[in-house]
């Protein structure tokens, strides 16, 4: 296990090395930079190998246990009664369990209230200021390893895909979507190696983010992935649309980062550390790992009480005395739970909430949640491999990853906020996707919607469900994107109204995309087997159902939003598939030119399809499957029920969702919604194609609303962009008229003075002196030269004369200065 940090560290650095190699040697690597792709692929495949080796080592040390649905199903009956109360600690129910001596006793103990197996430590300490320490550290648990394997695997497939997709960049290109100043199409040399350079840098940033052991390091890599996304979206820099999209992505992300920085500041100032270990220990101290406000935050918030104590002790008190007094008072007066008004919540609770919401803001920006979702559809301007890798599988997942990683830190109120945001997002994005005509837009909104699902799951306490959906979504979404890229590569357009009937021309693409659509819809045989999306979506709905049972009000909203979203998802995915591949070709010119993609592009599709189908399946005859592997990473205390303090809701233990009372309804509803969505899509787009147009006309206001993406872009433009332009206009005018006047004026005065002074002091005095002196030296030198006349006899004479003269001189010296010879 000690080798894990080294292996994963190397896996992180391999793409970085590839980045530098391509950066320095890029154009000279192979013809037109072709070998840059091999370097990048080599690096990411190496990282992948290292990840899987790490997985092997992990499994050898921590083989996941069998899922204990039955065990906990029984327990949930018990716990159901206990949950009626408000205890934050449901350990009593489980303790009684343990005392029953049920098999799996030890693992019950190991789950309820012990930290998950992990390897954490520091690579390098950057700075140590007093007690505060900044370092490059790592935190490796099964979530890390699963993310590593997933990211490297998908990235490897996409790297290979990109060698085929970006083939055009190997030679000069005429870009039909970019124009020069005089209206011509831009003609430019290819940038093949540059693409892989950015891809490598991105892989490094993403893997580093996953490996990070403290939040600051996460933030650094957060920004890094942001900048890589900027580069990649704006890859076609000559296109105005692409550069605008890149700017939009970065700026919107920055807004989210603003919140994240506030969260970081809250954590830093009150707790003085960024390391995950220490944060989790502070907020969920062992052995019960129940969420409580950390001491640091309590004291930071209770400043008025602290001042009272200090005043009581007087000015002579030492810092130690003060500290002991504070601690005593905090315990006796129960600052943690009793606030200034004598009621809950206690001191520091709001700070905890602020910290959690702040960090979540970063996730909102990065994972394109409402209201910062506007950048993701525009990010489709980048090449399709970028969309597949960055904007579906990995970077946007980083937000969800951070939410999952930071889960122990979130107070129930924060989880509530997360759930609301997630629910809004998933619903909104799904509705917009119904009307989108650009194939990549559909997938983009689908991504936003699925991310909403993950956030909703986490917000409802379904940690495992959210993380599982993250992994499965990565596979099938990247598969879908790559397929769409394959289609775009074939017909040279993104617009679905121009496609149709392509299944005959591109069978491989079509069928792999079908697998992807089925996966995202959650298709499968209920209670028996299904594609990967089936398991993860079912998990979410199970948790939703449990939540609904526990909290009838909001829970119903969440559950039905999720279920409705599932139906809409199935609908628009199959709409997309039907429009693209079935029916009659709508543009014969494009149809004739369409062809199946080369093997470099199809092979990754197949590989990803295999994973999209089976990544959630168990390894036969063993307890190893995705859910059990990820379960190992569940944060300590993650299985406790949580009671909200400010909101009257209970977040149930996720294991209870495995009870039959939740599984059965959820599965049936999931199946039902998926089926209905698919049937509806089939009806609209296969059996009665004219219906689509009719519905559109009938509900045209709604349709317009959806087509214009709920008018978000216009809203933001009106609220933020236009006022900024007004203010900047004013500032620019002020600058130009007033400030420039001052600056230019003083510049003129200085210049005039400088001319005069230069003439007087420099040219007359200094130069004069120097030149005169130099002239003397020079003439002296030339005169000295003339001593050497070239006559040998003269030289010899000078020996004798010189000796004599020296003697005379030295005698004079001795006599006059030193007194006697």
């Amino acid at each position, binding site marked *: 296990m000690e080798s894990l940090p080294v292996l994963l560290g190397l896996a992180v650095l391999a793409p970085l090395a590839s980045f530098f190699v391509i950066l320095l040697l890029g154009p000279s690597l192979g013809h037109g930079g072709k070998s840059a792709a091999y370097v990048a692929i080599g690096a990411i495949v190496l990282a992948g190998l290292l990840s899987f080796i790490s997985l092997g080592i992990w499994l050898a040390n921590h083989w996941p246990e069998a899922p204990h649905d039955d065990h906990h199903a029984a327990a949930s009956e018990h716990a159901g009664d206990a949950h009626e109360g408000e205890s934050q600690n449901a350990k009593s129910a489980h303790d009684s369990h343990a005392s029953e001596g049920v098999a799996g006793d030890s693992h019950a103990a190991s789950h309820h209230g012990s930290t998950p197996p992990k390897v954490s430590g520091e690579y390098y300490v950057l700075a140590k200021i007093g007690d505060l320490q900044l370092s490059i550290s790592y935190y490796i648990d099964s979530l890390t390893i699963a993310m590593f394997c997933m990211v490297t695997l998908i990235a490897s497939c996409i790297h290979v895909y990109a060698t085929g997709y970006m083939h055009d960049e190997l030679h000069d290109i005429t870009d039909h979507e970019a124009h020069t100043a005089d209206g011509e199409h831009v003609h430019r040399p290819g940038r093949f190696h540059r693409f892989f350079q950015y891809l490598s840098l991105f892989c490094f940033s993403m893997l580093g983010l996953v490996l990070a052991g403290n939040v600051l390091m996460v933030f650094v890599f957060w920004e890094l992935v942001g900048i890589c996304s900027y580069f990649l979206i704006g890859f076609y820099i000559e296109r105005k649309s692409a550069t605008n999209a890149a700017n939009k992505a970065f700026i919107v992300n920055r807004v989210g980062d603003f919140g994240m920085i506030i969260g970081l500041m809250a954590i830093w100032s009150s707790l003085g550390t960024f390391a995950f270990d220490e944060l989790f220990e502070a907020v969920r101290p062992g052995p019960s790992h129940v969420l409580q406000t950390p001491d640091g935050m309590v004291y930071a918030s209770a400043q008025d009480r602290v001042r009272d104590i200090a005043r009581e002790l007087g000015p002579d008190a030492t810092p130690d005395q003060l500290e002991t007094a504070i601690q005593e008072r905090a315990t006796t007066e129960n600052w943690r739970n009793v606030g200034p008004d004598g009621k809950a919540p206690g001191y520091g609770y709001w700070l905890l909430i602020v910290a959690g919401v702040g960090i979540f803001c970063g996730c909102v920006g990065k994972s394109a949640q409402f209201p910062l979702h506007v950048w993701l559809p525009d990010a489709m301007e980048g090449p399709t491999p970028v969309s597949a890798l960055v904007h579906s599988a990995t970077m946007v997942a980083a937000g969800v990853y951070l939410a999952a990683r930071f889960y122990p830190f979130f107070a129930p109120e924060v989880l509530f906020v997360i759930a609301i945001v997630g629910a809004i997002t998933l619903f909104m994005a799904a509705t917009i996707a119904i009307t989108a005509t650009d194939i990549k837009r559909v997938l983009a909104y689908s991504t936003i919607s699925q991310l909403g699902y993950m956030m909703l799951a986490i917000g409802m306490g379904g940690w495992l469900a959210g993380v599982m959906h993250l992994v499965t979504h990565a596979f099938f979404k990247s598969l879908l994107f790559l397929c769409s890229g394959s289609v775009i590569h074939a017909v040279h357009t993104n617009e679905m109204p121009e496609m149709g009937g392509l299944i005959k021309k591109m069978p491989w693409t079509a069928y792999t995309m079908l697998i992807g659509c089925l996966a995202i819809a959650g298709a499968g045989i209920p209670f028996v087997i299904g594609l990967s999306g089936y398991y993860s979506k079912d998990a979410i709905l199970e948790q939703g159902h449990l939540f609904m049972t526990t909290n009838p009000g909001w829970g119903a909203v969440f559950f039905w939003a999720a279920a409705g979203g599932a139906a809409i998802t199935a609908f628009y995915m199959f709409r997309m598939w039907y429009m693209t591949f079935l029916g009659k070709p709508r543009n014969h010119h494009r149809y004739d030119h369409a062809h199946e993609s080369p093997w470099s592009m199809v092979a990754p599709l197949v590989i990803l399809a295999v994973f999209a189908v089976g990544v959630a399946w168990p390894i036969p005859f063993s307890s190893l499957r995705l859910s059990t592997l990820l379960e190992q990473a569940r944060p300590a205390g993650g299985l406790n029920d949580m009671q909200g303090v400010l909101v009257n809701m209970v977040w149930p233990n996720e294991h209870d969702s495995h009870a039959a009372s939740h599984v059965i309804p959820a599965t049936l509803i999931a199946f039902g919604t998926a089926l209905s969505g698919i049937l509806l899509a089939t009806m609209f787009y296969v059996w009665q194609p004219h219906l689509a147009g009719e519905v559109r006309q009938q509900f045209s206001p709604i349709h317009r609303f959806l087509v214009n993406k709920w008018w978000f872009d216009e809203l933001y433009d009106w609220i933020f962009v236009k006022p900024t332009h007004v203010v900047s206009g004013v500032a620019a005018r002020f600058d130009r008229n007033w400030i420039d006047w001052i600056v230019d004026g003083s510049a003129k005065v200085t210049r005039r003075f400088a001319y005069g002074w230069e003439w007087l002091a420099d040219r007359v005095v200094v130069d004069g002196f120097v030149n005169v002196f130099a002239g003397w030296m020079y003439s002296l030198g030339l005169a000295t030269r003339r001593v050497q006349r070239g006559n040998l006899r003269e030289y010899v004479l000078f020996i004798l004369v010189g000796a004599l003269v020296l003697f005379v001189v030295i005698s004079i010296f001795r006599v006059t200065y030193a007194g006697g*010879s």
Partner: protein
Amino acid sequence: MNLTEYVNNVYHNTVDVSMPAFGPELVICATIVLMLAVRLFNWGRRVDVSYLAFAGAIVGFVLALYGPAERTEIFTGMLVYDKFTLFMRAFLLLFLILFVVLTKLSGIPDREDGPDIYSLVFGATLGMCLMSSANHLFMVFVAVEMASVPSYALAGLLKGRRQSSEAALKYAIYGAGAAGVMLYGISLVAGLLNTAHMPTIALELARRYAEFSSSQLMVLALASLMILVGLAFKLSAVPFHFWCPDVFEGAAAEVNAFLSVASKAAALALLLRVILGVGAVPPGVADEPVAVQTAPRQHLADGALYVMAQDPAVAAETSGRGREEAVAQLTPVRNYMGWLVAFVAAITCTFGNLAAYGQTNIKRLLAYSTIAHAGYMMMAAPPILTLVGLDSSRAHDAAAALALYIAIYLFMNLGAFAIVAFLRNSLRSEEIADYAGLVHRAPWVVICFSIILFSLVGLPPLAGFLGKFAVFAALADGYVVASQAGVSASHLLWLLVIGGVNTAISLFYYVRVVKVMTIDPEPESRTPFSVGVFPVAYVVLLTIPLVVLIFSWNFLNEWTLQAAAQLF
């Protein structure tokens, strides 16, 4: 004392004491013999002698690195073998290695002339090694001659060129004259003090200085001045420098490198040996010098002072001198020498710098530069003399400063002349004006040459600054210590000022060369040429120490301090 015992003693001294210490010189001799012998055979004619020379130089260098812990006199007092000898020998042999490589790269010696040329070079080096360990006035003369005579022949190396033959002639005549004057001076000193062995001279002077009549003192002064003439000739100090510009202009650039580096370094070492041998009493000297004749049955201990006196009375009289007392008694001698050397150093560096202003030939310019640098290096001697009696450790520092300057000077001048040699091969010219715009054609060479020239000026952060700084620091130190002790040492202050001003005015002619090479436009009549990879690599290799030394020159400091510690 009978003949057998005498011969036994001498034999023991030679074989057991002296020969092991003489290793590098013996290797040089062997190499010379080998190089000449190889030509006796037919197959030998096809052997490239430069490899032999290279091997010999390397073996000699390796041998020169191991040395004694204490100062020993070898060859019955003719030579002294201490850490300073070690330093100088290592320096000279290192230079020899680099020189052989240079000649191989620049192609001066062809197969026919190779053995002759290398024999001459090795012979001169042998003489220089002797110069740096001379302990007897006669050895001074022999070593100077041994180093100079091959140099006369080397100056005339390019047999077919008029200027070369003229240079050789001037060098030979001038050198012979100066050596003759020096020998006459030696004869007068030896006669006056009845010994030519330098430590004995020191002790004698210490004992009898107060008793000398003024006419005797005048003779002593004149005679030592005449000895200085010979030393000044070797050092190309004004007014005995007249041979230097002409010889440098006429001889080949490689020979110039040899003359300006090795010859100067050995001359400075000899200067130190002479002024300290006569002006101070060396460490480890037995308070009771033992005369060879008066200790018939005694095995002469190594390190004992040899007094070739036939008269037991003299031996008895020179014994019993306490070392510190002797050193104190020698103060007037040191003062005299200090003023003399200071005066000569001042006019040397000034003259050298001024006369370089109007030069158009690069070799002549570098000749005057050599003269000026000899002036700077000589400036380190007066503070040593002042400090010997006052503060021994600071005097050692001053001597170490001189050694440091010499060490750095090796790279600067060798690099400069190497570049001149390679450019002569490519451009067929040695006029500065023909170097115009060279930076476009041979950028590496020009960069290295510029670095070397700036280092010669003494600009930080190049190594030349280190050398100058060390010498000036020694001057300042000497002045401060002397003033604190109440001794007048104004000549040190004057030297410091003159040295500083000279450094400033020397900037002009060095930078003019840089300017011509970099800024002046290329002449249209220039034909394409190239300087080969190996010459450029050689030059770069020589320039690297100049740039890197500023970062860590402590090791050099340590070596030179160790070398200087046993001088006096």
